[in-house]
């Protein structure tokens, strides 16, 4: 099989997932211990998430009495109602959705065109064009020069800064190029023989063959945009234009954007505290995990391919 083709990728992926070690089997007690360790590691990863979920669905009163819970106690969705009633969270959510959708679309356009161009090693001065792409990976001018540039471009305090500062990442460009290399040259040649234009070949031959690679790279870009804290933190001061992560930092870490401190706590008729800092924070955490959770099955489907793609000899 040719290194890096879709068939090879699928094969490598299956091999990785279904890999059975050819090492000797362990004695039963050692094997049991290994299973136990792995089980505990999974539990350590999982329980904090379950705990946050339960806290977000419990009355503050119950949380203060005993916060170590794995199922909600005195179940309530007031904390969620509260965070949805604050306009600012939904605004930020909208900003993040915009940055993620628009950003990923532009990322893919740049990465596909650029990666395809760089897969053609016969172009003049190929080596120098490659260096042009690699250099920014090694050395950057730093935060302040970037800030000055964005100020001159009037991108400070604009939500477009979230899209424009990372239009194409050298690493993914190289990954894309490696994948295009795996598409047999003959396919393009035969299409050309039949009179297809360059553009047609790219759109109707190359891109359809590259769907797995495009999906992989697109998902990674998308998660990158969704989780991006710094671009918003550095370059957006206006909190009505903050992406979710910057607002979340303010809520979860500083505890001030939702003004929960001045709010004190919301109590019900019986005087029980229903909503307080703890379950509001927990509800905000869950709210922003949900989108990641929704794409996680797809991420999982593709990320092994992504890793394998990266290790294709370039």
């Amino acid at each position, binding site marked *: 099989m040719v290194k890096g083709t879709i068939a090879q990728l699928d094969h490598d992926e299956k091999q*990785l997932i279904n*890999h059975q*070690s*050819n*090492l*000797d089997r*362990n004695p039963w007690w050692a*094997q049991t211990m290994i*299973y136990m360790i*792995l089980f505990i*590691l*999974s539990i350590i*990863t999982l329980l*904090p998430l379950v*705990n*946050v979920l339960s806290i977000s669905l419990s009355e503050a009163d119950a949380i*203060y009495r*005993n*916060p170590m819970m794995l199922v909600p106690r005195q179940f309530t969705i007031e904390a969620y109602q509260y965070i949805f009633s604050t306009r600012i969270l939904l605004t930020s959510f909208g900003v993040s959705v915009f940055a993620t959708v628009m950003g990923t679309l532009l990322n893919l356009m*740049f990465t596909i*065109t*650029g990666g395809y*161009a760089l897969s*053609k090693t016969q*172009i003049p001065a190929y080596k120098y*064009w490659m260096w*042009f792409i*690699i*250099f920014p990976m090694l*050395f950057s*001018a*730093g*935060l*302040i*020069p*970037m*800030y*000055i*540039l964005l100020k001159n471009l009037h991108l400070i305090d604009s939500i477009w800064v979230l899209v424009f*500062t990372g239009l194409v990442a050298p690493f993914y460009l190289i990954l894309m190029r490696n994948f295009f290399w795996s598409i047999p040259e003959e396919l393009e040649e035969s299409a050309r023989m039949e009179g297809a234009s360059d553009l047609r070949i790219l759109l109707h031959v190359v891109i359809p063959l590259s769907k797995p690679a495009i999906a992989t790279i697109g998902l990674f870009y998308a*998660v990158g945009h969704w*989780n991006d*804290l*710094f671009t918003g933190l550095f370059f957006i001061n206006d909190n009505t234009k903050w992406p979710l992560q910057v607002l*979340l*930092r303010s809520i*979860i*870490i500083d505890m001030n954007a939702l003004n929960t401190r001045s709010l004190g706590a919301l109590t019900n008729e019986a005087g029980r505290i229903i909503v307080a800092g*703890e379950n509001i*924070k*927990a509800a905000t*955490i869950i709210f*922003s995990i949900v989108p*990641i959770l929704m794409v*996680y099955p797809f991420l*999982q489907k593709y990320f*092994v391919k992504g*890793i*394998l793609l990266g290790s294709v*000899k370039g």
Partner: protein
Amino acid sequence: MSLRKRYWKYRFIFILLLPTIAYFLVFSYFPFYGVVIAFKDLQIFKGIWASPWVGFKHFETLFASPKFAQLLENTLLISVYRLVFGFPVPILFALLLNEVRIIWFKRVVQTITYFPHFLSWVIFGGIVFNFIGPQGIINLFLTNAGMEPIGFVTNPDYFRPIVVVTGILKEFGWSAIIYLAALSAIDPQLYEAAKIDGAKKWRQIWHVTLPGIRSTIIMLFILSLASILDAGFEQVFILSNPSVLDVSDIIDTYVYRVGLLDANYGLATATGLFKGIVGAALIITANFIIRRTGEKSLW
């Protein structure tokens, strides 16, 4: 063929390359013009060009201040602790997973342990604080039990261990994938040969498994060494607070604070430039070493 004709022949390719080139020109190369701020006293109303030159003044200020030693110490210590305690974890995890014969169990463990990698540090930090914050569940539990709460977040002694441990918890699963890929590529015949030679389990691991992933280990180790000045900006930024600043202030957080918050552009640019140059030198050296060891180099 003349050069012009060759470019003309590949005009379609260059049209496709153009947006990428334009992007890097504007957002990666053009900012280098701003590096002159490191050698000037930027007066924002005069603009970069009209501001007076001050030579190496900002660098002298930086290197002479006790802050610089502190920044370097904090940055290097966090990175070194990460290497010593964090680097082996995904390798051990991959080796343990490699022993699992029940495929569904392996998949479930992987599905769970990879997940935190996809959460931002803001979210993961929120989950961490849910545990160890002043109002976190550990301290609520302690106070309810009539004990003194522990200042995990405010006591500087706890900061570095917390950074290292939470860093491991978030990434150990994901980092293991690359080792799992290397493990699955080991030729089964090598194991058979070892068994015929009478090698027991540990010998098989020592002579077949570990050599099989050695090049991956070496490459990732060299890369970690090369990025030793990157102590994990996002994580440190999220987990730190003013009361632990003496141990948590790393080069990146300092550049952000001094540059963007205090608007001391000259000093911040100089500090960033220092880090950029050393970092580039380290990664180029690393690539050189990797190439010399006969491995696939980075570029």
